[in-house]
């Protein structure tokens, strides 16, 4: 029979209480997500159909589908990624693998941190003032570049994290046999950090897909009968459409608003899922 002293009993009680507290909080975290998803799906149920995602909108969004918004989001995010991923990844490689700790590196790092802290609406203003100034009119390209600038610091941070995760000893082992920095990066560091970089980029894509502010003044439109003719044309986008239909005040059927939200949410969830799968796959092949 177990005979505890008061101290042991107190420890055990505390242990159980804390365990419950932490567990409860962890469970509580999931509740809002479930509620949001359930609520959205219930509300949107009447419009959810293949036609809703595959057809063009009609009559100021009151009828038809949201295909052009989905396509617009894909195009904008795609181009923004094409802008920010190469710059971000290469910059992070420089900062981690090449740069010495000097004033230049510190200023760049400081810049990255501060860029990450800039609110998205400020990015939007900058995009309107600078990028649209260059492109002439608001257009897909301007919106994408603005999105890209906004995602840049996060891509740099994700890449940095992935690079730092590769043990320093590997690099030293390479240098010790006479490999150059580039050879070390190419043959050891990059292959072993690619998974982390990719996951970071995908997560960033899912975030960019949901951003409204940066595309607000730079290239998204409320309603457009046809698909954009090119990157210098304007386009609809899911996030902006959601913002505008909800602020239209009753003109657009409620279920269509929720339908847009569900599609956007699904898009983001699928992206996140892809990133998780990728991570699991790469972790199973981890070599150290």
């Amino acid at each position, binding site marked *: 029979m177990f005979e505890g002293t008061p101290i042991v009993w107190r420890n055990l009680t505390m242990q159980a209480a804390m365990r419950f507290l932490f567990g409860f909080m962890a469970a509580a975290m999931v509740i809002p997500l479930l509620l949001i998803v359930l609520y959205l799906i219930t509300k949107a149920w009447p419009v959810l159909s293949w036609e809703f995602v595959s057809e063009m909108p009609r009559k100021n969004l009151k009828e038809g589908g949201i295909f052009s918004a989905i396509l617009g989001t894909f195009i904008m995010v795609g181009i923004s990624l094409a802008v920010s991923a190469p710059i971000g990844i290469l910059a992070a490689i420089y900062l981690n693998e090449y740069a010495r700790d000097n004033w230049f590196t510190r200023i760049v790092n400081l810049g990255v941190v501060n860029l990450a802290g800039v609110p998205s609406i400020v990015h939007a203003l900058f995009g309107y003032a600078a990028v649209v100034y260059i492109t002439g009119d608001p257009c897909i390209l301007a919106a994408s570049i603005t999105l890209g600038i906004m995602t840049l610091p996060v891509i740099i941070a994700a890449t940095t994290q992935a690079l730092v995760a590769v043990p320093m000893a590997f690099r030293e*082992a390479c240098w010790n046999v*006479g490999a150059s920095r580039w050879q070390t990066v190419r043959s050891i560091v990059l292959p072993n950090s690619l998974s982390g970089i990719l996951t970071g980029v995908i997560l960033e894509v899912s975030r960019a897909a949901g951003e409204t502010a940066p595309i607000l003044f730079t290239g998204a439109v409320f309603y457009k009968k046809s698909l954009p003719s090119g990157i210098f044309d304007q386009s609809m986008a899911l996030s902006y459409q959601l913002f505008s239909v909800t602020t239209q005040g009753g003109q657009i059927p409620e279920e269509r608003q929720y339908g847009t939200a569900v599609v956007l949410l699904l898009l983001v969830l699928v992206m996140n899922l892809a990133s998780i799968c990728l991570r699991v796959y790469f972790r199973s092949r981890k070599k150290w």
Partner: protein
Amino acid sequence: MTGERAVDIHDLTVTYGAKPALEKISLHAHRGEILGIIGPANSGKTTLLKCINRTLELIPKARRRGRVVVEGVEVDSYSLHGLRRKVGMVFPLPVGLPLSVYDNVAFAPRMAGIRRHAVLDELVERCLRQAALWEEVKDRLWMLGSRLSGGQQQRLTIARALSHEPEILCLDEFSIAVDPVTTMRIEDVLVDLKRDVTIILVTNLVQQARRLADRVAFINAGRLVEFDVTNVIFGEQPSEQMTFDYVRGHFG
């Protein structure tokens, strides 16, 4: 004495910031010899090795003064990659690159531009044989190097250090993470190797230096206490009392 000097260190002083790590060290290793470097922990032995392949430069705030000459040429006159190919390094804890056994050994040659399979195959086999590892791994060359046992991994790093055909092989307390049997095997390997390469053996095992080294340097607190042929260092009358006390285990 025998042969020319493969490594010649003259008045070497190293500081880490304000902290001195080595002070006015002068010693040398003849070609085809094993130079043993002994001394208590933190006496600067590893720092000395880092000066030879210039990995000291990777440490912020480390400053080096004095001459370090490898194969007749000042280390600063080499290209970094050229120097590190000339000097093989083995560290206390084996670091297997996240590659297969084969690729671990073929890494340096590939980086040097050797692509032909036949050449690489032969080179890998030779290095693994030299490191007394071939028989154990010849059937699983494509297994990850990190799956090998600790002692095998250490021999793999020796094979890797030999793969770029260095003229000098530096070993830094290689037996720390290795069992006694493997240690003896590696020691046999070193004795065989010294016909081809000059070996600098940093060790905290005094008896290991006695068994292997032709010449021994005793460093304490950053200063060279004594540098002489092994027999004298371990004999009845080394010129410094401190050497006598250290090799007999009175301190350190």
